[in-house]
């Protein structure tokens, strides 16, 4: 019998800097996932893993040690019963949220009752883009779709919208300030599970990407990341050939106002009302609706706008009904455009900072944001939140959550 889909629990690892000096560089992606499965079992003594049906993991670069359907391997290594399946899925940057939404839809179908959904990305170990793909490496496809790298798209959006370097740096500074305040205030405490080694020693307990000492001056000193790429490799020309009324692209994004490259994982325990009652799990939030939408592939990062409209319409809600927005801060201009187009109050968007400060472990982020949103609704005693991410290839995914 069909049921609402409930979030019973949500956990994530801290985000480690995505390079060989990052704390999680020595941890295998599968270990990050297994650690979270262990934590969920520990935190929810009533969780009967015999009732679990599947583990859905978003992984954006599913090659090497992240390849070969890591979800199934992780379920087995974590000691889950044989009948718990595993599936890896890839909707680029929204893969973690895609896993959550797919799980919610399966619960709502009435066919399944208890699922684990989330994602993992060890960007320091499996470099972004190392899985290739026709979109970036088949000339026929690349030419037909006017492919440009995301940073060029972000700068293109800033140019089209008239966001200056000052605007995007201002946003980045706010992300850092909010993230610092959130950590200091313990806003992430409920979801973050320390990563420990086999001997029980802490490897990482806090996000290590934020730079709380960031100032406008330190940001102003950073050089644009995509100017040379745009010019030398011809990507600016490709973008301008499509957005022909622009004469040039203003390259405003840099390492300080773009999402950080990090390692991390997240899991959300999702199930039906019945399974909650059976196992004594308390629903924390209901997944009201979810939507995906495509958008211009060259502009690439505006998909959350139509996706949010679509998800709200499916829920019979409007922007005014939403108390908090968690928008993945891929690049500052992308958030600013979303806020502008939806007419949002900036004080309701990314109230605890976002990926600019905290980092964006590609496949995991969507699931991490579910936890962040539910925690904050509870902390502020508010009702509804929208979680959304922009996506490579020109897509957006959005999810509407309601606190139980």
């Amino acid at each position, binding site marked *: 019998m069909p049921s609402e889909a409930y979030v019973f629990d949500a956990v994530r690892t801290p985000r480690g800097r995505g390079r060989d000096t990052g704390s999680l560089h020595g941890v295998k992606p599968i270990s990050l996932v297994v650690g979270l499965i262990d934590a969920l079992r520990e935190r929810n003594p009533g969780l009967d893993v015999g009732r679990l049906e599947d583990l859905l993991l978003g992984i954006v670069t599913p090659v090497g040690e992240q390849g070969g359907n890591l979800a199934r391997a992780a379920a087995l290594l974590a000691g889950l019963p044989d009948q718990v399946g595993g599936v890896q899925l890839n909707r680029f940057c929204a893969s973690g949220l895609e896993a959550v939404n797919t799980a919610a839809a399966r619960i709502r179908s009435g066919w399944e009752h208890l699922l684990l959904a989330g994602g993992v990305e060890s960007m320091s170990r499996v470099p972004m*883009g*190392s899985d*290739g793909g026709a979109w*970036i*490496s*088949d*000339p*026929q496809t*690349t*030419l037909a779709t006017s*492919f*440009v*790298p995301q940073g060029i798209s972000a700068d293109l959006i800033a140019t089209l919208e008239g966001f200056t370097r000052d605007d995007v740096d201002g946003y980045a500074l706010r992300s850092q300030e909010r993230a610092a305040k959130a950590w200091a205030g313990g806003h992430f405490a409920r979801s973050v599970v320390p990563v420990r080694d086999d001997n029980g020693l802490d490897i990482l307990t806090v996000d290590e990407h934020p730079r709380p000492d960031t100032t406008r001056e330190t940001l102003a000193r950073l050089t644009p990341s995509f100017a040379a790429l745009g010019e030398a*490799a*011809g*990507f600016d*020309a*490709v973008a*301008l*050939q499509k957005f*022909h*009324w*622009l*004469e*040039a692209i203003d390259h405003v994004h840099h390492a300080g106002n773009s999402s950080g490259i990090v390692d991390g994982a997240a899991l959300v325990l999702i199930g039906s009302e019945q399974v909650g009652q059976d196992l004594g799990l308390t629903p924390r939030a209901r997944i009201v609706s979810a939507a995906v939408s495509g958008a211009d592939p060259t502009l690439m990062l505006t998909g959350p706008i139509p996706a949010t409209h679509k998800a709200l319409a499916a829920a019979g809600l409007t922007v005014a009904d939403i108390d908090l927005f968690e928008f993945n801060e891929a690049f500052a201009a992308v958030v600013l455009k979303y806020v502008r187009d939806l007419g949002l109050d900036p004080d309701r968007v990314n109230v605890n900072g976002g990926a600019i400060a905290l980092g964006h472990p590609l496949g995991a982020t969507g699931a991490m944001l579910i936890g962040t949103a539910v925690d904050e609704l509870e902390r502020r005693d508010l009702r509804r939140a929208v979680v959304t991410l922009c996506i490579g290839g020109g897509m957006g995914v959005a999810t509407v959550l309601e606190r139980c």
Partner: protein
Amino acid sequence: MTNTIRYDRGADGIVTLTLDDPDQSANIMNQAYATSMSAALDRLEAERDEVTGVVVTSAKSTFFAGGDLPRMIRATRADAPELAEVLDTIKRDLRRLETLGRPVVAAINGSALGGGLEIALACHHRIALDAPDSRLGLPEVTLGLLPGAGGVTRTVRMLGLAAALTTVLLTGRRMRPADALAVGIVDEVVATPTELLDRARAWIAANPHPSQPWDRPDYRMPGGTPASRSLAAQLPAFPATLRKQLKGARLPAPEAILATAVEGAQVDLETAFTVETRHLIGLLTGQIAKNMIGAFFFDLKAVNGGAARPTDVHAPPVRRVAVLGAGMMGAGIAYACASAGLDVVVRDVTPEAAGRAREHAERLLARRVRKGRATEADARAVLGRITTTDRVDALAGCDAVIEAVFEDPTLKKAVFAEVLPVLAPGALLASNTSTLPITGLAEGVDRPADFIGMHFFSPVDRMPLLEIVVGARTSDTALARAFDLGRRIGKTPIVVNDGRGFFTSRVIGRFLDEAVGMVAEGVPAASVEQAALQAGYPTGPLALADEVSLTLIQRIRRQFEDASEEFLPLPAHRLVDELVDAYDRPGRAEGRGFYSYDDGARGRLWPGLADLVTDAGRAVPFTDLQERMLFAEALDALRCLDEGVLRTETDANIGSIFGIGFPAWTGGVIRYVRQYAGGPAGFAARAAELADRYGDRFTPPADLVDRLAASAAHPGELAGVA
């Protein structure tokens, strides 16, 4: 079927395969070649035990010219199976040659282009004779094609993906033997034909068991395959770089070459050949290759071959040329003449002014010497043929005069009057005016039959076109002499009748008017530039207008206005006037026009243009922007045909591409009409639609469709139009 390959086995066991098509002046990759090569391979394989090596050479002055263009231009979708079969046969036999187990050497005695080089690439060793006119390369891209006899597949494996694309395949460069050696597509360059064969035999003796690099177990593709991490990281930039280089023009051939190269690099050799064939057939059966073959092979051959030159006239060749005016054009013309071995006397008002022509020649020659294109002695000889002077009597004995002074009819008449008495009797009298009617200028001389327009394009040393303008009283002899002079100095001469602006200046004026008019009506200036570039124009119209200079555009338009009662004022005219008169933005030379210039380098568009942009202007569909420019020129070219300014479609096509930058993919301005989707009828329907939206100037001539259907086009081209 004719045998085109002679098979001779010497006492040393070396078989010489001599490419020699008895029915053609140059060897081409036709059906006879395919059959002959199959037979040659059958025999080589049968006699393998007696064969010690193979030399492939040619009995023609060139090695091998390339594809069978008369056949290719007729290819339709229905021919795909047959094309696939022929290509498979050709590739199979070249594969048999390189896997024969005997050393195979290409003795490249002259130009090896396209299919010719592809044959050589299937040999184990390539030796090129350093003949002065010899060129090697895969120029297929310039005809809208790709090298489909293994050329993409083998150059990628030989040079690596990036190098093959950038040095050979995408440029289509026709290389001198020394350059071909530097690029790596030949292994040796020799000075004499004897050396060529001696070296070939020596290599065979020294390498009894050769194989192609890609057939060896330790073969690695230079620079890696798309699967290797370093190349995979660069790969996304390849298409972007191509789009940047082509300025957004979506030409099927370079895109197909890139795709063929990348796809082929990921699979085995045989599969790569198949991929190559598939992409080539797509191009062959498409329209754009037909357009380009039509223009760059057939039309160009007809024009340069003298289709427009009167026959049966006594036209003594010009030996000594007087050039009046040592400005940029005069200096360029003088250099062109001197380079072709003619004596030139350049006259200007002072010795210093005249001396600029010499300085110009010195600059160009120094560059040629630096690049190894000429020796110091060559340069001295060319300079020795240029005399500069301020004196009229120094022009004594010149049997042609080319006037290149300021565009003022009174001045032009005056300089002719001044020099006429000292010239050789019957000297050819030519004006390099770009717009002034020749018949009117001829009134200034007492021999109007000898008077003609020779409109060169700037910069003269790089622009191949010459527009010869026949005035009302110009004689056939004058035309023949001007034509011969044009050919002598290496130009491609089209011949048109008189009229203000003739053909080229008049038609390019429609392009500039339409483009500037779009800016005036509120279209973003950047969109106008992009629309033109993406339509395949080499330069954006606003950048071009700046280069021509807005002041000159204004002056020419006022001359038109004064000369014609039917002159129609356009919004574009007002905008040019405002830029020149109100905003003091006269063009590139002054550093400010539609664009700003910093030290000669083009910067951004003038921000003042942004104030002109309107919502309606933004809403004009991009395709309309492009087709308004293309149609404006095509419709005016049709009117030129109507009015008799243009004599032939061939001249219109060649003149439009080589003189005024009409997009090359169209195969020329009239062929553009013929090849438009739906043919001339489709063009007329679209013109009517544009007229409805943008004004009567787009109304097509009423009889357009019938007229084009009745008039001759190359028989091969119509097949592709339907």
